[in-house]
C-alpha cells in the first residue's frame, strides 16, 4: 500500500527552513507519480513509495532497487547530495512527509527526555519542562542550522547528565506499556468470553424451548398433558431463567427420588419375589440377542458432525428417534470387527482337512457367526 503525499504537504515548518532536506520536501506533491522515474500509478498498480530518513525524498520501490542494489549511491533528487543505502529505505507512516520527519525526531527526543510528572515537585515545573522539550523539538525540526546544532548539543548534554534517570524511566515506561497492553488484551479476551457465553446461553435457551415444545407434543401424543407438567413447562418457557429452570428441574428430580424412597413401605415385609416371567410372545429370533457385545450404547451419544441434525426439523420428524441414528452408525462401524477371516479360514481348513465335503456347511457357519457379531 502506498502512502500518498497530499497536495499542500508543503508546510511552514518546511518552508522556513533553509536546509536541503526540508526544502526538497516541498517538491513532493504528486501522489500517483514517482518523481524519479515518472512512472504513474496507472501503469504500475502496486507502485509503492519508499523514503529514506536521511533526506525524506520519496521514490518508488523500483527506483530504489534500480539505484541502490549495487551499494550506496547518491540521492537522485537534484541538489540533494546525500548518500543513501538500500537498507535505510522504508515506507512512510504518514502521508505528510514533514510530519513523518517530525515524528522521527520526536522519537529520538522522547527517548532522552522521558521524565514523567512524578519526577517533578509541582505541576508547573513539569509543564515548564514539557515546554522546554517542545521548544527543543521545534528547533530540531524547523530551526535554523545554528538552532539545530544548539538543540543537538543540549540533547546530548542532557543524555549524558541524566543517564541513570533516563534508563530508569525507560524501564518504567516499558513496564507501564507492557502492563497496559496486557490489560487491554485481558479486557478483550474477557469481552470475547462474555460474548461467547451470551451466544451459548442464547443457543441453550433456544434448544430448551424446542425441547419443551417437543415434550409438550410428546405428552399430548401420549394423552397425559398433566397439570404438573404444564406448570413446569411454563417455568421453562420463561426467558432469562435458564439457571432457575435448571434448579427447578433438579428439585423435581430430587422430589421424584424422594417419592421413590418414601413410597409406603412396611418394615419386615418380605420383598416380593418377582413373578416368574410369563411365557413371552413368540420370539422369531429364538432368543438371539441383538444387544451389541463389544460396545455399550449410551443414550445421548453425540458427535459434532451430527449435532446440528438434532435441531433440524427434517431429521426429527415424528416417529423417528434420533438415538436410532447413533445405534445404526455404531452397528455399522463395528460390524465385522472381531471376525478374523484367517482364523475362520483355519477353522475352515481344519475342517476341510477332515472332510472337504462339509466345506460349504463351514462357510455357512462362518457366515452365521459374522451375522451375529
Amino acid at each position, binding site marked *: 500500500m502506498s502512502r500518498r503525499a497530499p497536495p499542500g504537504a508543503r508546510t*511552514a515548518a518546511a518552508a522556513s527552513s533553509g536546509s536541503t532536506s526540508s526544502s526538497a520536501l516541498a517538491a513532493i506533491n504528486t501522489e500517483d507519480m514517482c518523481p524519479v522515474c515518472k512512472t504513474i500509478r496507472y501503469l504500475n498498480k502496486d507502485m509503492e513509495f519508499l523514503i529514506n530518513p536521511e533526506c525524506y525524498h520519496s521514490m518508488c520501490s523500483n527506483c530504489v532497487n534500480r539505484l541502490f542494489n549495487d551499494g550506496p549511491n547518491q540521492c537522485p533528487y537534484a541538489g540533494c547530495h546525500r548518500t543513501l543505502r538500500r537498507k535505510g529505505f522504508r515506507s512512510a507512516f504518514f*502521508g505528510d512527509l514533514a510530519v513523518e520527519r517530525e515524528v522521527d525526531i*520526536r522519537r529520538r527526543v522522547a527517548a532522552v527526555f522521558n521524565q514523567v510528572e512524578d519526577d517533578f515537585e509541582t505541576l508547573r515545573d513539569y*509543564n515548564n519542562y514539557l*515546554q522546554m522539550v*517542545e521548544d527543543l523539538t521545534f528547533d530540531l525540526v524547523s530551526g535554523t542550522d545554528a538552532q539545530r546544532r544548539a538543540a543537538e548539543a543540549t540533547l546530548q548534554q542532557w543524555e549524558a547528565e541524566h543517564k541513570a534517570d533516563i534508563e530508569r524511566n525507560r524501564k518504567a515506561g516499558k513496564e507501564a506499556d507492557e502492563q497496559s497492553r496486557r490489560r487491554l488484551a485481558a*479486557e478483550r479476551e474477557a469481552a470475547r468470553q*462474555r460474548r461467547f457465553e*451470551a451466544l451459548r446461553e442464547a443457543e441453550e435457551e*433456544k434448544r430448551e424451548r424446542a425441547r419443551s415444545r417437543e415434550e409438550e407434543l410428546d405428552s399430548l401424543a401420549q394423552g397425559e398433558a398433566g397439570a404438573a407438567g404444564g406448570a413446569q413447562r411454563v417455568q421453562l418457557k420463561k426467558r432469562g431463567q435458564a439457571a432457575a429452570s435448571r434448579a427447578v428441574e433438579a428439585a423435581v428430580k430430587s422430589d421424584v427420588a424422594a417419592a421413590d424412597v418414601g413410597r409406603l413401605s412396611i418394615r419386615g415385609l418380605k420383598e416380593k419375589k418377582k413373578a416368574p416371567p410369563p411365557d413371552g410372545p413368540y420370539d422369531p429370533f429364538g432368543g438371539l440377542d441383538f444387544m451389541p457385545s463389544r460396545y455399550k450404547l449410551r443414550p445421548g451419544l453425540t458427535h459434532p458432525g451430527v449435532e446440528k441434525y438434532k435441531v433440524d426439523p427434517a431429521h426429527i420428524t415424528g416417529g423417528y428417534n434420533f438415538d436410532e441414528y447413533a445405534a445404526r452408525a455404531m452397528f455399522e462401524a463395528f460390524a465385522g470387527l472381531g471376525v478374523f477371516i484367517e482364523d475362520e479360514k483355519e477353522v475352515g481348513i481344519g475342517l476341510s482337512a477332515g472332510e472337504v465335503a462339509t466345506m460349504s456347511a463351514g462357510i455357512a457357519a462362518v457366515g452365521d457367526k459374522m451375522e451375529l457379531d
Partner: protein
Amino acid sequence: MEFNIDDLPVLFPYPRIYPEQYAYMVDLKKTLDAGGNCVLEMPSGTGKTVTLLSLIVAYQQYYPSHRKLIYCSRTMSEIEKALVELKALMKFRAQRLGYEEEFRGLGLTSRKNLCLHPSVKREKSGNVVDARCRSLTAGFVKEKKEKGEEVEVCVYHDNLDLLEPHNLVPNGVWTLDGLLRYGEQHKQCPYFTARRMMQYCNVIIYSYHYLLDPKIAERVSKDLSKDCIVVFDEAHNIDNVCIESLSTDITEDSLRKATRGAQNLENRISEMRDSDQQKLQDEYEKLVEGLRGADDGRQEDSFMANPTLPDDLLKEAVPGNIRRAEHFVAFLRRFIEYLKTRMKVRQVISETPPSFLAHLKEHTFIEKKPLRFCAERLTSLVRTLELTNIEDYQPLQEVATFATLVATYEKGFLLILEPYESDTAEVPNPVLHFTCLDAAIAIKPVFDRFSSVIITSGTISPLEMYPKMLDFPTVVQESYSMTLARRSFLPMIVTRGSDQASISTSFQVRNEPSVVRNYGNLLTEFAKITPDGMVVFFPSYLYMESIISMWQGMGILDEVWKYKLILVETPDAQETSLALETYRTACCNGRGAVLLCVARGKVSEGIDFDHQYGRTVLCIGVPFQYTESRILKARLEFLRETYRIRENDFLSFDAMRHAAQCLGRVLRGKDDYGLMVLADRRFQKKRNQLPKWINQALLDADVNLSTDMAVSSARRFLKTMAQPFRAKDQEGISTWSMEDLKRHQQKMDEDRIKELQAQEEGESNPLPRTVDDGRESDYEMDDDDEAELMALHNDG
C-alpha cells in the same frame, strides 16, 4: 378552576379537568416534595403540557423557594405551543388573583430563528447565521469599534448593553414571536435578550440540546441553580438524543478541511507574531498561570465549549507542550495526519478508546493529557487570534472535540472505522464513527445537578426501561390510562390476510407476493371504509419503495386510487412537507388521502394527524431497527454487558416505542376518534409492550384478526362514532367539573383514612404487596424475530 392538592392551591385555566390530569398532578407534586426523579406516561392528547405547567407554576408561586422550571421539548413548534399555553395560564392566574405576579417566562431557540439583523437573518443555514452573528457581536469587535476602527457591528446586540442587565424585558411570558416583535420595537436582539435573561426567569422553555449536549450545555445552562425543576417532554427518544450529542463522525473530507483550518491558524499566528506579539504573549501568560478561559466576562460569544461534562472539567493548567500557539498547531496537525493515515485502512476496524490512544502514542508521541485539553486550547487560541470567519474552522473544531472526548472517556465509547459506505460499494469512502454507546453519560450531569428531573411522554412504555438505560433512581413511575366516555379509538392487531395466510414483514417473507398482496388488500379495504385521512407506516424507506412498486405491478394502487389520493413521504424534507400540505388539503375536501410514510421518518414524530387528518393509522410490520449497523451492534453489546439488557429486549422495546409513537399520531384529544391497526403476526406477542392506555383499549376480541374480520369490526366502530356525541356526555366520566373533583378528593381522603385505620388495627398483618413483578417475560421475542435477526447476521 381552582382547587387544592394537599395544601397547594392550583389554578387550572379550564373549567373542567380530566381525571388523569388530576392524577398526574398529584404524582408530580409527590415527586417535587420528595425531591427526586420520575417517569410519567400520559396518553397523548390529554393536555399534558398545561397540566405540568399549571402545577409547577402553582408550586413555584406558593412555596417560598421559587424553584425555577426548565422545560425541555423537542421541536420548535412544541416549544412555541408550550409558550402559548404558559401565556394563557398566566393570564388566567392574573384574572383569578386580581394582580400580575412577578413572573417571567422565556423561550430560547437558535440564532437563526431569533435574528433581527437585516442581512444575517436572511441566511439559510443555521451554522452560517451563528458564525456571522459571532463575527458581529464578539467582544473584540466591540473593543475595536471603541478604539475607532472601522468594523461592522450589530446594532440590536449593542443596544442591549445600554439596558439594565437584569431587566432586559418586562415581566410576563414571551413567546418567540412576541420576543421578536418586542425586539423589533425596541431595537434589541431577541436571542441575546433571552440568553442573558435566563437566570432571571421563572420558566425557561427550550430544546433538549441546551441541557443534554455538553458542547452547548456548558455555555447556555451553567448558571442554573441546583433546585431547578427539569422537565423533559416527549422524552421517549431521550436516549438517542443523549447518544447523538456525544457522537461524532469524521470523514476524509472533514480531515482535509481540518488540515486547511490548521494551516490558516498557522498563518494567522505568524501574522500576529509580526503585528501584535503582545496578545499571544498575554494568552501564553494566562495559560502558564492556569487561568481557565482568557477572559471570564463574556462566555456567550465563545467559539465552542469543552465537550466533556462539567464534573470532568479540567481544573488544572494546560499542559506545557501545547501552551505555545505554534506548538499547539503542530500538535493538531500531527493528530490530523495520524487520523488520515488510519482512514486509509481498507477493512472495518472497531476499537476502544484506550487501544486507540496506545496506538496513537506509539506513532505520534501524543500523550493522553494534552489531547484532553485540545478543545479548550483551540477555543482559547481562536479567541486570541480574534478570528471572525469561524465557519471555516468547523471541521477543525470537530476534530478537537473528538480528541477531547476520546482522551476523556475510556468506557462507553467505541471507534468504528467503516471504509465503505455499504457492503457492495467499490469506491472507498471512509468514515470514522466515534460513537457513544451509553446514554447515561450525557444525561448524568443533569441528574447530578438538578434534584428533580421529570421525564414524560405520551408513549414511554415500558417505564422501567428508561431508569435502567439512563441509570437514575425514580421516586414515581406511573402510566395513566385514558378515561373515555365512549370508546373513541379502536386498536386492532391484524395477523392474517383474508386468505388466512399470516402476514408479517419478517425478513424471509417480506417480499413474497402473497404477503404483499395481503397487505395491499388490507390497505384497499381500509381505504374504502375510512372517512377522510389515513396514514400508513412502513418499517423502512427501502421496504416501502419495494412494496409500493410491487403494489403498482399488482394493480393495488389503482384500486386504492379509486377511494383516496395517494401521497408518499421521502427522505427529502421539502418534498415531504409538500406531500403533507397536499394531504391536509385533500383531507379537508373530497374523499381524503392516504399518506404512506416510514415509522422512523419525520412524519412519525411530531406531526399530528388530529380529527379528519387521521382517522386510520395502519402500521405495516414491526418497525425494527436495521440490525446490520455496526454502531447498533456495538450498542447492543454494551447494553447487555453494562445494564443487563438483552439485545432482543432492546430491539423489541425500540420497535414498539416507535410503533406506539405512530399509533399516537392519530388521537390528539378526547373528542377525536380513530382506528389503530397493527398489521403483523408478531405484534400479537408484543402486545404487552404497548403503552398502558393503548393496551387497555385493545380488547381480546380484537387481536389475531384476519383482514375481513378487522374490516367488519372497524365498520361497526365507525358507525358508533357517527352517532352524535355531546360534551355533556363526557361529564363526570372523562371530564370532571369542580363538584366531581371535590367528590373524588373526598373519596380519596376517606379511602386514606380507612387505610390508616386499617393499618392501625392490623399492624401485625400489613397489606399484601400488589406490585406486579411478572413482567419479565414481556419482551419475549418470538422465533421469527430471532430467525430474522439471525438471517441478517448471517447476511453480513
